């Protein structure tokens, strides 16, 4: 798979986690692609932390309105039934447990469900934006990312970068498989048949528990 196919593959698998009626916040980058694979007929309410619910696709060229943008600042649309609100309300939704699922990328994630995705000291300090609140407040936190950073494991025994939040990650979805973070550690629930269990273990620093009913990853 090339880079784009790989990202689409991960996004498609994440989309299968969504249920009718869910309020969902998608992070910038790969997580945003999940919106392209929401099954037809399923009602998903996409929340945008800059202040609305009912996030729709990009407008046709020439119809952009810089007063309706997503959390990345790009012009988007709002769907019928949507609503605009201010940042206090937006984070009431996020922190107050009214978001069913948030999907974010990660620099590192570890077997205790810790997540690091907002800074690399001395190198890159973009700020956390809404990520710390999202990861703390959403009912379910899904990390959608490539399994490694150019071969270097990102799923670790313990994060070394500054944390975004402690003990909040529920699920990790990569091109290699679907993993759940449990009390006992990270459980590989589904595996992409293109890889062997050994392949996945070799690309993961954390101890992987292989589910007894390990399934093939389907998209």
């Amino acid at each position, binding site marked *: 798979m090339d880079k784009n196919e790989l990202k689409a593959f991960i996004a498609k698998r994440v989309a299968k986690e969504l249920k009718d009626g869910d309020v969902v916040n998608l992070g910038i980058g790969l997580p945003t692609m999940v919106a392209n694979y929401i099954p037809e007929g399923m009602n998903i309410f996409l929340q*945008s932390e800059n202040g609305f619910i009912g996030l729709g696709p990009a407008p046709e060229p020439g119809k952009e309105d810089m*007063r309706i943008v997503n959390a990345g600042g790009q012009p988007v649309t709002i769907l019928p039934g949507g609503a605009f609100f201010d*940042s206090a309300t937006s984070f009431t939704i996020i*922190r107050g447990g009214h978001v069913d699922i948030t999907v974010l990328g990660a620099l590192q994630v570890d077997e205790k469900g*810790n997540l690091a995705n907002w800074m690399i000291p001395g190198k890159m300090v973009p*700020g956390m934006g809404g990520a710390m609140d999202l990861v*703390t407040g959403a009912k379910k936190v899904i990390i959608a990312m490539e399994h490694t950073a150019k071969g270097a494991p990102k799923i670790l025994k313990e994060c070394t970068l500054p944390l975004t*939040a402690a003990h909040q990650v529920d699920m990790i979805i990569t091109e290699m498989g679907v993993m759940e973070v449990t009390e006992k550690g990270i459980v590989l629930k589904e595996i992409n048949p293109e890889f062997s269990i050994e392949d996945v273990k070799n690309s993961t620093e954390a101890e992987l528990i292989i589910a007894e009913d390990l399934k093939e990853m389907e998209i």
Partner: protein
Amino acid sequence: MNKLVSIDEAVDMIKDGMTIMVGGFLGCGNPHKIIDKLVEKNVKDLTLICNDSSFPDYGVGKLVVNHQIKKLIASHVGTNPETGRQMNAGEMEVVLVPQGTLAEQVRAGGAGLGGILTPTGVGTVIEEGKEKITVDGVEYLLEKPLKADVALIAGQKVDKFGNIVYFGATRNFNTIMATAADIVIVEADEVVEVGDLDPNDVVTSGIFVDYIVDGGAN
């Protein structure tokens, strides 16, 4: 009571060294014309409270590029490389705050609260130096209120009393910042007469607004 002032009169209220809050999110909902005038007048050593530092050539990002900011309190600075450069060079102090915490700190400032308790940041570097309070077995950080000398906000339709109707996703921090500063100045896309706005549509009451600048319909 005439709240309508010229853009020059409005910006003259902002002095070197003041703390200002500016509504907006990556430039969306920034009071763009007031910002441009602030750049032109080159007011210095400002402490800026804003969600982000926008882009180098859009919204509050211009104030950073023009070296007018001494200290920035924001949740995200990644879209403006000049912010990172000044931060790393020690030219500007940057305090990064989780976005929901920033919103609640401003809200607390405007609502007369002594602070807020949030679970966000527990177990991260954000908790350093902050009081932790356990309520019913859950740990929270005590985050103090934020206030400013001047809040610069943006509205779509504003009547001459200062009642504000917003459009699209421009509300963001504007509604809360309108409550949390000594002087609140709104840049209106359109100024209308008192009575022209349906009270059902008003989001920010004119009681919060001290001055109105007619930005001209965008």
